[in-house]
Every structure is written in C-alpha cells, then in structure tokens.
C-alpha cells in the first residue's frame, strides 16, 4: 500500500551551480521553503558537471558567468552525459544570442537575475 502523499512532482533534489555564495544562500532558502531539497552546491561549471554525475539531481540551476568553466559549457556537457537532464539557466546575462544558445542545448528555462521566489517556483512548476 502506498501511503506517501505530498509533492507529486518528479522534481525533488536540486543541484545549484553558481560562483556566488549569496545566490546559493538565497536559492536554498527559497527552494527549501517550498519543500525541495538542495542536494549539492557547485561553484563553477566544472564542479557542476562532476556533481551532476555523482548526485544525479532531478534539476540543476545553472549560472552562466563563472570561472574555470562557464554555465553554457557545463550545460552542454551535462546534456551530453544525460540528454534527459533538466537545467534552468539563471543568469544576469540575458541577451538573445545567449538565450538562444542555451535553449538550443535543450534547457528547460532561462531566468534572469535578479530573481524572486515566484520566478523560481513557477519555473520549476512549469517543468513537465
């Protein structure tokens, strides 16, 4: 008998990739308040790819401008490893060329910083 009730969404465990500790803190606060688990924190794209492989999160929030490896490269690597990966880009950079490049990789959504709780939660709800 299945007695588990609650969040029916397939998304529970979320990996955060951003070089800025403040973004990790603000995102974690928002996500945890809405019942999601932050399963990992990566500070650049390279760490993000590596944590994606070891943690197998349901969703990744990915910054773009980061040292070592930027978010577009990291998203491309992750999609190459797991074409079913779900990635939401979250960046201060939002010109058309970058948004189109990111969308061509098969990402779920592209959010612009600064963000608020509503933007984050509705983007997750929008994922089928």
């Amino acid at each position, binding site marked *: 008998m299945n007695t588990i009730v609650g969040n029916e969404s397939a998304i529970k465990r979320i990996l955060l990739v951003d070089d800025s*500790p*403040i973004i990790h803190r603000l995102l974690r606060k928002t996500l945890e308040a809405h019942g999601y688990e932050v399963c990992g924190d990566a500070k650049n794209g390279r760490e993000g790819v590596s944590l994606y492989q070891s943690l197998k999160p349901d969703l990744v929030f990915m910054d773009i401008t*980061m*040292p070592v490896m930027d978010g577009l490269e990291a998203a491309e690597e992750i999609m190459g490893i797991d074409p079913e990966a779900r990635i939401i880009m979250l960046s*201060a*950079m*939002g*010109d058309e060329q970058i948004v189109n490049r990111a969308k061509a990789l098969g990402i779920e959504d592209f959010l*612009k910083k*600064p963000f608020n709780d509503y933007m984050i939660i509705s983007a997750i709800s929008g994922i089928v």
Partner: protein
Amino acid sequence: MDIKYILPFLEALKGILEQFGATDIKRGNMTKNDLMHVDTDITAVVGMVGRVRGNIAYSMATDTAKRIVSAMMMGMPVEELNEMGRSALGEFSNMVTGNASTLLSGSGIQVDITPPSIIFGRDVYFIISSVETLKIDMESSLGRVEVNIGLEL
C-alpha cells in the same frame, strides 16, 4: 565616449536598485578622467569583452554597501561585510553589468562579461588599460554608487 555605451549601465543600475527597493534614484555628477581612479571604500569591478572591451567599476562607501547587501538579503541586518556580503556585492555588479550587456545587445553590440572582483580600500587606481573613463554618480535611498566606465572604443 558615445552616450549609447553609457546609458545601458545607468539604466541597468537604476532597474536593479529599484528591484531591491531603492527609492529617489537620480543621476548626479558626471566627470571625465584619463585613468580609472576611485576614492570610496569598496569597489566591485567587472570586465567586458567582445565588440566593446574594458572595465566597469561600481564604487561606494561602506554604509552604502551594507545597505545594498541588506536589501539583497531581504532586509536582513548587515553589521559587517563578511564573505556573504562580499559575494552579494559581486553579484550586484554582475547583475547590473549583465543587464547592461543585454541592453547593449539590443543595439547590436554583443559583449560578454567576466566574474566580478571586489576591492576594499580607498584611493585606488585601476591601470588595467589606459582608456578615458567616465565617472557617473547615482544617488538613491541606499546611498551613492559611482559608476566608472572605462571602455576601449
């Protein structure tokens, strides 16, 4: 320096300040310098590459920085600028420059930006590239932010 390269930064800064709840936002003095020189307590610098190259430095007094960080952290009191505070200032400069670059791309000028650096200390000269720099003051309820724009054009 053509105004079309300057306005996106001021517009982006105004927009970000508004989103963090600043009021009474108005542009103050504008001065032209041969080098990028700041004499406030804290400066966040972001590099720009692409069709336009250079550096944008956002400098401010410690109190202003604390008020901005507090606003970014949903009003949480900020007593000192620790690692989280420095990160918030870096992110603030990243948001302003990122949003400005989106506006620039709307005029057909494609640019990319580098991760921000935060510098503590007064009387700092940035001799990164010897380009003419414009310093524009932006006043608001959070305090004064000086925007130093040094672009190779």
